């Protein structure tokens, strides 16, 4: 993870914690609701070759941060971002904000960095993944994320406010649309009718804090609640869902903030390397192996830990087969009820949990294992039932088809045989048999799916529609399902975590958290922070940080790269040094996966499908893509080509779904 990404994610975490503390005073269990804007504007650096000057702005779209005192915030943010050097400046707007009679202060903070295009590309993907992970449990927060590179704007809105959720009572709600967790194209269109996961909540267990961790300041009582679900819904009948192919584990800390694993080598992840440490897979005849292929370049929530099924014979072909179900396991760590939380203490817990989760879970291994196993067993039980039902259906249909074929082929009545062939429009008995089997399979499966979808539609009745409705809802069924309580989702119990709390000795915060405060931070209406060394932000030594970055970097095979190159070369002229504000708005299917509307600034004309082109034409403000190299100035041939290619790659990466 690079500097911009770390800074953005940490600042967002800080803001959400602040927001949570403010909200908790009014209503402890309420979901956070509001919009944050994150925009990165990158221009070719005038001072450093092959580098982009990136200005990152984080702002609230509305007045959601009542009581935000900028001075205090700046200090605290600086304290949580060690290694951050900042340039601060005030703007005249601050005066008017601060004098707002309502006392509500919209805020805006800006920091600037110089980054390589590829680094910015990775940063954008990391930020996107962070946002996806947040909205998965805080669905009413909307993030407006935009990146503008040399005038080329790419914008995406993350939010799941109108999606069905499983309320977890402590201010977080798990989004249950399966599109967040698995990619849909691998399943046929008919199989999207049940679009939900059905999480099974395990019983909350108290976590024991090891002495050495407690000494660092992690005091109090924490509980862990697992939730397991199969994705897609096991009710969906399909040959493709006959087996489990992978398991994804998502770690969340208090307030529903992700416990990001910055580095797979760090202690937090070590206990998960042993796939059977918490889960007995053998009782379900599964053999899991860790999956280290973390590809950021997907419109899905990236799991913190991923396993894949390996057959007992070590069949490699099965290992990589994506056509199975994924077991999703969410581990929610939160405070036990009655524990008071202060903002910075909450922050401290997050930081310590990120570092010491492994030790804490190890200390409570037995109880954690029991709780997780129960949830996993119940989720997999759904799978076993679905498999059995599917096998029963298949076996029955086979008997039915064979019986009909037996009568048909054994009949001496030519009129009967002729009528049968004509009805199914079959040329001969063989084709008749094939069509008969196909018809039975399709019709009965569709009926099963309709049965399943009826449940979804019933739950959706009365819900408001998605107001950002330019999404292609027809293609994906019903994206506008309302939030539903846990009882409405699957009739299971509702998790009650109780009010969050965090107790810490005053004065011990900085030392125990290992944070330091930069004295250079000033106070002003416009805050500018400069990231000196992104690796410092990770609190890790250089090589480890590098390794972490390497793990997060998207990898592409040569074939994909060459295809992209061919495509990008055709649009190099359009990309290079584009100066004007290009606002060619278009819509993509991928945007719906986040339940968002999406505005993309740039796409190659060749990449636009007719409907998108039509939308583009219908947008009166859309400016033509005017090639211009003036701004970049003259460059040497090879260097220029590499530079342009880097920019081109970046633009492609920034365009959601364009690489797929």
């Amino acid at each position: 993870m690079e500097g911009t990404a770390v800074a953005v994610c940490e600042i967002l975490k800080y803001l959400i914690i602040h927001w949570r503390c403010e909200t908790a005073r009014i209503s402890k269990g309420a979901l956070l609701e509001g919009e944050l804007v994150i925009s990165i504007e990158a221009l070719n650096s005038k001072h450093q070759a092959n580098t982009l000057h990136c200005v990152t702005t984080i702002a609230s779209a509305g007045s959601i941060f009542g009581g935000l005192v900028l001075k205090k915030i700046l200090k605290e943010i600086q304290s949580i971002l060690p290694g951050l050097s900042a340039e601060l400046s005030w703007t005249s707007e601050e005066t008017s904000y601060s004098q707002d009679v309502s006392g509500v202060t919209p805020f805006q903070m800006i920091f600037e960095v110089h980054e390589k295009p590829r680094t910015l590309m990775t940063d954008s993907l990391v930020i996107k993944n962070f946002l996806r992970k947040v909205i998965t449990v805080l669905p009413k927060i909307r993030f407006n994320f935009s990146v503008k590179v040399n005038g080329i704007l790419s914008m995406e809105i993350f939010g799941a406010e109108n999606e069905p959720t499983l309320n977890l009572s402590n201010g977080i709600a798990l989004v249950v649309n399966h599109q967040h967790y698995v990619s849909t194209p691998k399943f046929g269109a008919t199989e999207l009718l049940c679009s939900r996961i059905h999480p099974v909540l395990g019983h909350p267990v108290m976590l024991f804090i090891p002495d050495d961790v407690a000494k660092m300041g992690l005091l109090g009582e924490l509980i862990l609640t697992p939730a397991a679900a199969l994705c897609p819904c096991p009710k969906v009948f399909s040959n493709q869902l006959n087996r489990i192919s992978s398991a994804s584990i998502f770690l969340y800390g208090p307030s529903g903030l992700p416990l990001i694993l910055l580095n797979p080598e760090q202690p937090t992840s070590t206990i998960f390397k042993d796939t059977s440490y918490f889960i007995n897979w053998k009782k379900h005849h599964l053999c899991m192996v860790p999956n280290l292929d973390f590809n950021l370049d997907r419109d899905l929530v990236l799991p913190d830990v991923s396993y894949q099924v390996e057959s007992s014979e070590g069949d490699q072909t099965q290992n990589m087969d994506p056509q199975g179900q994924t077991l999703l396991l969410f581990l929610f760590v939160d405070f036990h009820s009655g524990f008071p939380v202060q903002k910075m203490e909450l922050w401290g817990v997050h930081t310590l949990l990120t570092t010491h989760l492994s030790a804490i879970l190890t200390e409570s291994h037995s109880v954690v294992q029991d709780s997780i196993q129960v949830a996993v067993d119940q989720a997999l039980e759904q799978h076993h039932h679905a498999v059995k039902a599917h096998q029963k259906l298949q076996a029955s249909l086979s008997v039915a088809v064979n019986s009909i074929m037996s009568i048909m082929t054994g009949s001496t009545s030519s009129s009967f045989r002729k009528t049968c062939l004509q009805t199914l429009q079959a040329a001969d008995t063989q084709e008749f048999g094939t069509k008969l089997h196909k018809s039975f399979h399709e019709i009965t499966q569709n009926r099963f799916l309709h049965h399943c979808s009826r449940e979804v539609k019933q739950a959706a009745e009365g819900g408001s529609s998605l107001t950002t409705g330019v999404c292609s809802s027809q293609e994906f069924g019903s994206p506008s399902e309302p939030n539903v309580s846990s009882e409405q989702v699957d009739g299971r119990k509702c998790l009650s975590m109780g009010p969050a709390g965090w107790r810490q000795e005053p004065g011990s915060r900085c030392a125990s958290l290992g944070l330091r405060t930069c004295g250079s931070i000033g106070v002003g209406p416009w805050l500018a922070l400069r990231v000196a060394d992104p690796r410092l932000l990770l609190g890790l030594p250089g090589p480890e940080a590098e390794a972490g970055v390497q793990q997060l970097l998207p990898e592409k095979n040569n074939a994909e790269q060459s295809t992209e190159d061919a495509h990008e070369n055709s649009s190099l002229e359009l990309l290079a040094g584009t100066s004007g504000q290009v606002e060619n708005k278009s819509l993509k299917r991928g945007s719906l996966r986040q339940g968002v509307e999406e505005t993309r600034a740039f796409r190659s004309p060749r990449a636009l499908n007719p409907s998108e082109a039509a939308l583009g034409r219908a947008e009166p403000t859309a400016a033509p893509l005017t090639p211009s190299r003036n701004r970049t100035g003259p460059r040497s041939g090879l260097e220029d080509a590499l530079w342009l290619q880097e920019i081109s790659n970046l633009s492609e990466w920034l365009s959601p779904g364009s690489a797929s």
Partner: protein
Amino acid sequence: MAFAPRGPEASFFQVLDQHRASLLAALRKGGGEPAGGGTRLATSSEVLAAIENVIQDIITSLARNEAPAFTIDNRSSWENIKFEDSVGLHMVSHCTTRKIKSDSPKSVKTFALILKILSMIYKLVQSNTYATKRDIYYTDSQLFGNQTVVDNIINDISCMLKVPRRSLHILSTSKGLIAGDLRYIEEDGTKVNCACATAVAVPSNIQGIQNLITDAKFLLIVEKDATFQRLLDDSFCTKMSPCIMVTGKGAPDLNTRLLVKKLWDTFHIPIFTLVDADPHGIEIMCIYKYGSMAMSFEAHNLTVPAIRWLGLLPSDIKRLNIPKGTLIPLTKQDQMKLDSVLKRPYITCQPFWRKEMEIMADSKMKAEIQALTFLSSDYLSRVYLPNKLKFGGWI
């Protein structure tokens, strides 16, 4: 001519003869055989065509992109059962139906099994061969699960196609026995004389038996095989000659019922039942007389409303001073069964039966036929039955 066993004097059968005369008079008054009685068997080509129609309907549904389903008359609901004194229990013409869907997890297997058995029937009819329900079960016992599944599906098919089971070329395994003054020739030409000392198994192809000959004055249906054997040992058929005895060994199978029906249709001799004085015995008697709900769609071929209840009547217990020690208290299940039978539509036209059942309900006791052995070991064959038959002790 074979030696005819010597029975009672002719005067012994005076009341029986009168009873037979009244039955025949009733038949004549009612216009002969009840409507639908003796329904003809469907021809092989008709059965094949019926099955082909079913298959065409399924294929048409598939072509319309609709999930195929079987619509079968709901035989398990009393709403669909009508009672007529002359016929017994039979299905109403416009009864409610149930659907066996191919797209429902609950019924998809039944749907497939119906097709499976239909295909087997199709082959049996085509090849003019017969199989028992047991044979069909054993063709794929794992698929069918148990015999009851096969039995129910065969009944469903018979009901759906409106074709008697015999026409489906499916035979039921006979468990019934017959003894007494009866001779006949089976379909394969085998000559059978039931007058031998040992009982003869009820044939599996009742429709195929020919040249039935008897001089029997009555037919006695005995509920239990043990009682039947005891009567044979006591030479009841000789002492009461000429007569016929039949047992279905409990609840009668189809062939035993068909045989009783055939004997009634052929000879119109009085038919009596000897059952335990308990709710289960009464129900068995009702099956012979009025038919069962499950087979109500074929009632016209199976029921014999002329059947009378000879014994053991609950009122006999008090009349004969059978010691209470030999009686058995009614269980909860007995009580429920008795209540159920009392609510059956045919009980309204059987006031004497109702009275006997109320006696049983009031005493809360039941008695087996064997209870009579307390009076003497051969009391049943030597005293009880001859007296009942001689003096008309039936209801």
